[in-house]
């Protein structure tokens, strides 16, 4: 790589016109990813973007890398095949809440369980955008949409809980209107070896505008977002005077300087703790009681399927007398007809 010219975001832009609505949160994610790729130390030809179907799933077309725009719900399975076929590739799966949690739910949980080294970016707008506004498995209970004219009657998934419930090793969250934060989180996801799930709270201006409004709006965001950093105190708020403490089964908001609370009392975020108890509470936090947790919430290093399979093949190869098909065909019980 030493002789290579350093690439820039522009090198990752394909010749295709970006076709999302003006104001759609997907644009920001595209921009951030195009900007961070030059820094990952992976050659452009060794990057593959894989998606399913949905507005968000158009993503690969805009990337000047290798890419597959798959079929609805199957991005995780297709990406798994890409990575297992060639583990030298940096594989990115871009998916929507419908694509990955509705029709693709099974591939999602199995990908997570297998811990294949893939970076999943889940653009969660809590709606089916491409098909024009039906509720998704992350839509809020009671939400009115085209297929729930009287309100949904389904409990939404919390992608973080589902990830951890599927033996997930890496989960992070960001928001579409904070490109700096997305940059940090996506870089960490890329650096993580194993399945990394990054949920981006994404706004669909057309069919579910401001679904994440309280969380992302300027007026409320400081109080309703907490940016977690491994090894740092869980402090947030406009005045940076609020913090989280853990009471044994749940997290609580306290104010530093009130009721004798000092900064020392605030919980330190440990993304590397195997035991997912606290992570499970963090991913669930929601306004108005609690801020939404952003950042890398869980990041555990563990063997990956994509490495294991190659290691196992190498080990078996070494110990087997069969080196090629001719060996195999002539092995075992054979006889000569003369």
């Amino acid at each position, binding site marked *: 790589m030493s002789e290579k010219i350093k690439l820039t975001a522009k090198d990752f832009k394909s010749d295709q016109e970006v076709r999302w609505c003006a104001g759609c949160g997907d644009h920001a994610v595209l921009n951030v990813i195009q900007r961070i790729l030059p820094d990952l130390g992976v050659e*452009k030809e060794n990057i593959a973007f*894989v998606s399913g179907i949905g507005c968000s799933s158009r993503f690969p*077309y805009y990337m000047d890398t*290798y890419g597959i725009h798959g079929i609805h719900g199957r991005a995780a*399975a*297709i990406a798994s*095949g890409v990575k297992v076929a060639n583990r030298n590739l940096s594989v990115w799966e871009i998916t929507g809440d419908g694509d990955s949690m509705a029709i693709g739910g099974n591939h999602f949980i199995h990908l997570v369980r297998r811990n294949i080294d893939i970076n999943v970016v889940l653009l969660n707008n809590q709606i089916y955008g491409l098909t024009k506004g039906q509720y998704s498995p992350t839509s809020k209970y009671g939400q009115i949409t085209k297929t729930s004219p009287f309100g949904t009657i389904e409990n939404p998934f919390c992608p973080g809980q589902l990830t951890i419930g599927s033996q997930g090793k890496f989960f992070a969250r960001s928001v579409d209107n904070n490109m700096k934060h997305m940059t940090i989180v996506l870089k960490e996801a890329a650096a993580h070896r194993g399945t990394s799930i990054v949920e981006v709270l994404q706004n669909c201006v057309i069919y579910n505008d401001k679904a994440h409004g309280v969380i992302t709006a300027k007026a409320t965001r400081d109080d309703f977002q907490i940016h977690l950093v491994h090894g740092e105190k869980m402090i947030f708020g406009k005045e940076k005077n609020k913090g989280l403490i853990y009471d044994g089964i749940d997290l609580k908001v306290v104010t530093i300087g009130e009721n004798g609370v000092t900064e020392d009392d605030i919980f330190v975020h440990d993304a590397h703790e195997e035991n997912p108890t606290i992570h499970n509470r963090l991913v669930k936090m929601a306004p108005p009681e609690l801020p939404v947790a952003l950042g890398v919430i869980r990041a555990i290093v563990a063997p990956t399927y994509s490495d294991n*399979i190659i290691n196992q093949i190498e080990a078996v190869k070494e110990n087997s007398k069969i080196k090629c098909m001719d060996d195999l065909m*002539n092995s075992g019980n054979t006889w000569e007809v003369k």
Partner: protein
Amino acid sequence: MSKKVIELEDVVIKFSGDSGDGMQLTGTQFSDTSALMGNDVATFPDYPAEIRAPQGTVGGVSGFQLHFGHTEVNYPGDYVDVLVAMNPAAIKANVRWVKPGGTIIYDSDSFIEKNIKRAGYIADPVKEDNLDDFNLIKAPISTFTEKTLKDQGLDRKTVMRSKNMFALGIVYWIFQRDLTHTERFFEQKFKKSEKIVAANKRVLKAGYYYAETIHAMPRYRVEAARIEKGRYRNMHGNAATAWGMIAAAEKAGLDLFCGSYPITPATEILQELANRKDLGVKSFQAEDEIAGICTAIGASFAGNLAVTTTSGPGLALKGEAIGLAVITEIPLVIVNVQRGGPSTGLPTKTEQSDLMQALYGRNGESPAVVIAASTPSNCFYYAYMACKIAIEHMTPVILLTDGYLANGSEPWKIVKMDEMPEITIPYASKDDKDYQPYKRDLETMVRTWAIPGTPGLEHRIGGLEKMALTGTVSYIPENHQVMTDERAKKVEFVQKSVPDLKIIGNDDAELLIVGWGGTYGQIVTAHSAMIEKGKNVAYAHFHYINPLPKNAEEILKKFDKIVVCELNMGQFVNYLRMNFPKNHYRQYNKVQGLPFTVVELVNHFETLLEEK
């Protein structure tokens, strides 16, 4: 005491007993020994339906049928010359398949009331099933086995487990088989216990010598067959399919990736591939059939030779994703081991009823190559060819086998890898500055393959209609027509490399028999029988279904009377009607979960010859 030895051309034996009686092993020993002695052999196991039925019931009967001969043996036989039955249920289940006057050897010790009732007889199987019409040999197999192993320090369970070897000994005597192969097998298998090796040898011999003492016991000679010289091994259909794909990957210089989900009767292909990590096979047991094919699609995109293996219901689930492979034009092999349908149907039984599904089971105009193997061992060749076509023509190829081929086995002359046909990968040129993913070779309509990792060839593919040449998304009406036509043409052009259809028999035959896929063994045998009877019939067997061989129409045109035989209600015959509507076709169909019998085929052909 020397007996009259009768010479036979070929013999069909079935070993049958309870699931725990070791019939598969017994049959395999007989078949291996016969192959080693130079006979041609075909075998077919007959497992009980999926879940174990209670011991002693007809549902729990496990059988192993084999056909060996001194002439070519093309199928495991329909009716049997010798039935070895370890219990009444085995007789109940199989008696209808014993040839008139055939021999039934049974363990008379098992004819106790409990077993008789469980088998569904009221009192006396001999009377109820008119067993006296056969050459019935009551052998006290259990007690003699016990006697033989008395004082060997073995527990009763171990003793009773070897009674199948007593039965095998009897049959070895009848057919003058050499015991050494089986003895060596004991030494291998029970390496850890000399005692068990000795016990098995003893019981085998006891059976052998017991047979000698029985007056009614026939004795036969089946001479070695005149088969091609060379090194042979026994090949199971599913293993052959797996090996054919590994061979293709090796030849092409690609890693083999298999994304599959277990399903009867295709599972052994995945299992065999999982075992071949030494040859670098990446077997991915997916969470379902959809993930199976989708991981394969990903792996194909990433440059592996990618395959997925399944059976009927699984193929249904893969339909949507096959469409993705069609429109993206990537190499992909889908193996479908057909079983009885619809729905879960008869999962352990054979059928040919997925042909239409293979051809049309997906949305839109979605052409794919469809080919079919016809014998357990040529699954190797057709699996290899499926891979070759997929790679060279950048297309999904559906390989059809069936439960009968998958589970059957026969001796197979080992090929040499350097004699296998070359596989040429249509790689995109690394130096192509203006790489266009959907630019085609106009001779073949094939696009080139640019593998991720290659600098400068970055590109995107997907399921939306794409612009000719560039492959970018396009909604232009005329372009959709162009691409639809080009995809169709690409598959049509595979015909250029499809070998001509051969006919067995004369061009002026009164009747042309047409078959495809796994019915070859029975039809070719029936055809020979017709020729022996002096009938002028010809036979054409199809391995290439889409596209059909170039000369197919011409051949069919020559015959006034054509009958298409298949194990479904007429799928291939309808496909021929679509393709070559000018001929008149008769059809002969059966869906009973079983192969054709040669007898029913011959009868039907004779009737057809009489018809005007």
